[in-house]
């Protein structure tokens, strides 16, 4: 395992890996999402309380999970960046942020759409919704902060500090439904005593979740590639400056 990591830690090798791997990841993502959508839309029962609107779940819940997942992985990469100063960790973290922001936005929007029929309102300022909103803001802050620096390494490290700091928001999001009275329903899939939802709903949920996961992987690699290319360009540019 550590061998693989060491192998990939070299930026140029990682670029080759990224280039060859991302089409496969994209393919896996498309297959899973198509299967998930088909299952979710046509092959799963409507909810006995919510009716057909429950199908929003198949986008909302995986997107929400991914919003948390991406941030968690960014937190780990930030630790790597700050403690071991690993340049690849910076790049990965920087490339993850926009994807995470998109997932969060999807969760917010689908949640809002879902909320209108079920709660009768688009938005309330309760703990779950607010903390997810804060997560979105932190993603945006991350994106802004990396770009506020002339020196990309500095920007990346500044963003790593912000990421670590914002990480305390994750448990708040996760447990907000248990700790406070909220409109949002508590966890029913990921919890200690096993999932408590119908299998026919479980299957499309899992399919979509896997699809979203590969969405993340694929776009992460694409972003990293652009990032590394840009860096190369910049180096060339600086070399040219020196030659003059």
């Amino acid at each position: 395992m550590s061998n693989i990591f060491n192998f990939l830690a070299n930026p140029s090798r990682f670029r080759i890996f990224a280039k060859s791997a991302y089409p496969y990841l994209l393919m896996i993502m498309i297959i899973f999402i198509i299967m998930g959508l088909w299952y979710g839309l046509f092959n799963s029962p409507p909810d006995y309380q919510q009716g057909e609107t429950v199908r929003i779940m198949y986008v909302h819940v995986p997107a929400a999970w991914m919003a948390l997942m991406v941030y968690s992985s960014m937190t780990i990469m930030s630790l790597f960046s700050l403690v071991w100063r690993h340049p690849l960790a910076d790049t990965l973290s920087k490339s993850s942020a926009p994807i995470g922001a998109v997932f969060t936005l999807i969760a917010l929007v689908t949640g809002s759409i879902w909320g209108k029929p079920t709660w009768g309102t688009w938005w309330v300022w309760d703990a779950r919704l607010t903390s997810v909103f804060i997560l979105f803001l932190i993603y945006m802050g991350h994106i802004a902060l990396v770009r506020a620096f002339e020196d990309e390494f500095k920007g990346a490290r500044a963003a790593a500090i912000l990421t670590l700091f914002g990480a305390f928001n994750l448990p708040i999001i996760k447990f907000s439904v248990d700790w406070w009275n909220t409109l949002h329903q508590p966890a029913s899939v990921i919890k200690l005593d096993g999932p408590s939802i119908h299998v026919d709903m479980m299957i499309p949920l899992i399919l979509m979740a896997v699809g979203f996961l590969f969405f993340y992987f694929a776009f992460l690699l694409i972003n990293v590639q652009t990032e590394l290319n840009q860096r190369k360009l910049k180096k060339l540019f600086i070399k040219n400056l020196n030659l003059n």
Partner: protein
Amino acid sequence: MIKMRLFFKLVNRDIYLVIKGASDAGAAILFYLLAIIMFPLSSGTDSSLLTTIAGGAIWMAALFASLLSLDRLFRSDFEDGYLEQIVLSGVSMELIVLSKCFAHWLTNGLPIVLLSPILSLIIGLDFQYWWILALTLLLGTPSLTLIGATPAALSCAIGKGGVLTALVLLPLMLPVLILGSGAITAEISGLGGIGHIYALSAILPISLLISPFLASKSIRLGWE
């Protein structure tokens, strides 16, 4: 022991600078008062309305006041080379951060806490709830300072700050605001604010642990 002495010398100096007017922390308290007055001015003087939003208003004013003064927590010392001198004098960066936070709290947070019972009167909060207001502020203002230290330090690295710092800062401070004002609302509504207060007091040690580390990293980043 020696570290302790150093710590208090540093705190001493910061407070002295406030007294001499070099740092503007003193003005933050006045700003806090003014901000509170703005609530009745902008929302009308309907007294039942005021009673409802009183807790939230005081908390928001406290947050804005710390926001404004936190922005410059490290910047002037960073820019004139003072931090470089101190860190080369055998004082660890973490200790410097802690001392600055402590001085900031003493000159900003503490007065806010002490003034709160009087302010609750001005703004129309029922006087019987003064203790919970004061308690939430006592627990919350140090967290605000500590949480704000990291973005304030980051703003040195960016070389500008002001609003950008505030921007990065604000979402991180929101939980404190929510819990603080939530405790008061819950207490008034009869639900009891003790749960909020527990959560609030959990944030303090966590930020005390993380903040010096991350803030020092940020300042070093500014030097690089």
